[in-house]
C-alpha cells in the first residue's frame, strides 16, 4: 500500500521493541464481543489508473459550468477564478497545515487570515471580520444567535427575499435556543415596509435583510436599519461580497452584522461546498463574535507576528458557554478569497461588478423581449433577476439543457406562488453571444 510505509520487517522490529507478538496484542482492550468478525463490505481497492477512469466517468455525467453556459445563481455563481489561486493554495505548506495553534510555525496561514480579515472588513464596511465560517447560510444562523446574545431578545425577523435555503439553516440553529422566526412578505420582490414596521418590535433581536435578495432585487438597507434601530434591534445584512466593489458597503448603511457567501471570491462551485462564510461586525460586538480571529502582536525580539486571539470566546476554552460551537474556519477558502481580492484589487473588483451589472441588464432586456416572457419584479436588480415564463420553468430548464445552457433556478420548490418564475444570474464571464443564444433558445422553447 503506497500510503502505508511500514514493511513487515519494520512491523516486526517495532513489535519487538513494544514487547508484543502481533498487532492483535495491542487491541486487547477492545472486548471480543465488540469486534468485527468479517472484512468490511466495501468494493476492493482500485489502482490509480482504474480509479481515474471510474471518477472521470462519474464526473462526465454532470452538467458542469465548463461544458454548459451557466445562468444559475441562487447563492452560488460562475465568476472568474484567476489561475494563480489554484496554484498558490495547492502549495503543501498551506494545503496540508493544521489550524495555526503553534503560531511560530504557522505565520503563513496567520498572516493570510489577517489580510483576509482586513479585506472583508473593508468590503463590508465593518470594523472586524472573523477568519470565516462554513458558508453563508451558517454565518447567518450564527448572526441570529449572536443577536440574541447581544440583545437578550427572542425573535428574528427575516425578509422573504432572504435565500430560502438560508432560512432553513437559521431555523435549525434557532431551534435549540427557542428563537422565533418571523417572515416579512415581499410581494413586489422587496420588503413590504408597512408589514416590516408591524413585525419589528420590542422582542426583535435582529432584522435580517438580504441585498440583492433571492429574487435578485436590491433592498433599501438604510431604511431597514432605521426600522431595526428604532426598535432597539440589530440589523443583519446578507451580502454577496463580490458585488461590493460597486454596491455600498452595508456597514455604511447601518448594518450591525454583515454575513454572506464568499464563494464568488475565487472559490470553486463544487456542487455547493466547501464555500466561504463571511462574518463581520461592529467593534463593540467583537467579544460576542463566533469563530476564529487573528490578531497582530510582536514576538520576543519585537518583530511583527500574528496569533489566534480572543480565544476565550471559543469552545475549546469556554466549552458549553462558548459564543458558538464552531471549531474550524474554512481557512483554505479564505485564502482563495484573499488571493482573489489581491489580484482583482480596487479596480478589478469594481470592474467585475460593472460588467456583471451591465450584462445582467442586457440579458434582462433581451430575455424580456421573448414573447410571453417578462420581468416579474420592477425593483432595481444587480446581477440576477426573476423572469415570469409562459411555460413551466422546470421544463424550460430541462429543454435548454439539451443545448448546453443552464437557464437558471426555478422558484417553484421555494415558493409555489412564484411557480412560473425563473431566477437568472449573469456574471462578468457571460458573453453577448451566450446571452443571445439563451434568448433564442428560450424563444424557440416557449413559442
Amino acid at each position, binding site marked *: 500500500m503506497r500510503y502505508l510505509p511500514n514493511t513487515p520487517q519494520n512491523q516486526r522490529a517495532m513489535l519487538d521493541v513494544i514487547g508484543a507478538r502481533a498487532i492483535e496484542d495491542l487491541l486487547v482492550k477492545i472486548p471480543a464481543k465488540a469486534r468485527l468478525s468479517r472484512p468490511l463490505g466495501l468494493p476492493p481497492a482500485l489502482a490509480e489508473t482504474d480509479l481515474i477512469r471510474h471518477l472521470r466517468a462519474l464526473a462526465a455525467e454532470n452538467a458542469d459550468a465548463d461544458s454548459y453556459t451557466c445562468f444559475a445563481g441562487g447563492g452560488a455563481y460562475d465568476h472568474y477564478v484567476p489561475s494563480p489561486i489554484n496554484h498558490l493554495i495547492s502549495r503543501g505548506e498551506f494545503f496540508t497545515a493544521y489550524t495555526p495553534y503553534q503560531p511560530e510555525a504557522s505565520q503563513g496561514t496567520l498572516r493570510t487570515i489577517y489580510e483576509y480579515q482586513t479585506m472583508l472588513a473593508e468590503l463590508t464596511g465593518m470594523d472586524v471580520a472573523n477568519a470565516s465560517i462554513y458558508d453563508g447560510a451558517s454565518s447567518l444562523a450564527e448572526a441570529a444567535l449572536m443577536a440574541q446574545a447581544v440583545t437578550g431578545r427572542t425573535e428574528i425577523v427575516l425578509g422573504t427575499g432572504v435565500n430560502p435555503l438560508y432560512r432553513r439553516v437559521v431555523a435549525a440553529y434557532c431551534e435549540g435556543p427557542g428563537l422565533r422566526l418571523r417572515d416579512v412578505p415581499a410581494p413586489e420582490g422587496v420588503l413590504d415596509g408597512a408589514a416590516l414596521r408591524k413585525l419589528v418590535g420590542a422582542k426583535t433581536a435582529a432584522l435580517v435583510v438580504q441585498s440583492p435578495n433571492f429574487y435578485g432585487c436590491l433592498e433599501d438597507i438604510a431604511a431597514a436599519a432605521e426600522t431595526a434601530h428604532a426598535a432597539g434591534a440589530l440589523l443583519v445584512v446578507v451580502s454577496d461580497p463580490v458585488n461590493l466593489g460597486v454596491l455600498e458597503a452595508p456597514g455604511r448603511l447601518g448594518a450591525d452584522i454583515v454575513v454572506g457567501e464568499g464563494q464568488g471570491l475565487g472559490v470553486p462551485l463544487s456542487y455547493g461546498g466547501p464555500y466561504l462564510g463571511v462574518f463581520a461586525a461592529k467593534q463593540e460586538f467583537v*467579544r460576542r463574535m463566533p469563530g476564529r480571529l487573528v490578531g497582530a502582536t510582536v514576538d520576543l525580539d519585537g518583530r511583527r507576528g500574528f496569533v489566534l486571539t480572543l*480565544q*476565550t470566546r471559543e469552545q475549546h*476554552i469556554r466549552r458549553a458557554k462558548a459564543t458558538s460551537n464552531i471549531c474550524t474556519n474554512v481557512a483554505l477558502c479564505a485564502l482563495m478569497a484573499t488571493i482573489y481580492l489581491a489580484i482583482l484589487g480596487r479596480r478589478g473588483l469594481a470592474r467585475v461588478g460593472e460588467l456583471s451589472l451591465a450584462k445582467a441588464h442586457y440579458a434582462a432586456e433581451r430575455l424580456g423581449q421573448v414573447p410571453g416572457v417578462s420581468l416579474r419584479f420592477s425593483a432595481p436588480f444587480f446581477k440576477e433577476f426573476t423572469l415570469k415564463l409562459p411555460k413551466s420553468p422546470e421544463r424550460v430548464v430541462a429543454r435548454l439543457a439539451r443545448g448546453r445552457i443552464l437557464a437558471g433556478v426555478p422558484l417553484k420548490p421555494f415558493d409555489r406562488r412564484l411557480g412560473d418564475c425563473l431566477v437568472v444570474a449573469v456574471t462578468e464571464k457571460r458573453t453577448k453571444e451566450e446571452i443571445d443564444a439563451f434568448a433564442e433558445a428560450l424563444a424557440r422553447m416557449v413559442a
Partner: protein
Amino acid sequence: MSNIPTDLRYTRDHEWAKREGGNVRVGITHYAQEQLGDVVFVELPKAGAPAAQRQSFGVVESVKAVSDLYAPVSGKVVEVNAELGKTPELVNQDPYGRGWMIVIKPSNAAEWDQLLTAKQYEEFLAQGGH
C-alpha cells in the same frame, strides 16, 4: 504564600469583600489573579444591576482561561471600576486596590457573616483552594 489582607472577607470562589460604610467593595484575590495569569479582559455589570450571592456578576479572562465572578453578597451594584476596561492589568498589579471590580449595596446583612475570614481563606487555600 499568597497575600491575604486580614481586614477583608473572602469567598471560596476567590473573591474578596471589603466593608465601606454601608457598602461592600469586591475584587478577586491575589491567589486568583496569579492562577489566571495576565488578565486581558474584565466584563462587569452596569451600575444599578442586581447582584445575588454566589451568582455570577461578570467574567474575568486571561489569554487561555475564563472565570466567572461571583458576588459575595446580594444587593445592588452601585459602582463599577471603569478603569479595568482600558487597563485590565490592574487586576494583576493591584488586586486589592486599583484592581477592584464593583461596589454592592447589600440587601441582606446576614450574608456578610457567611464569608470566610482571612484565616479561614488561608486554610482553604492550604487545602488546595477548590
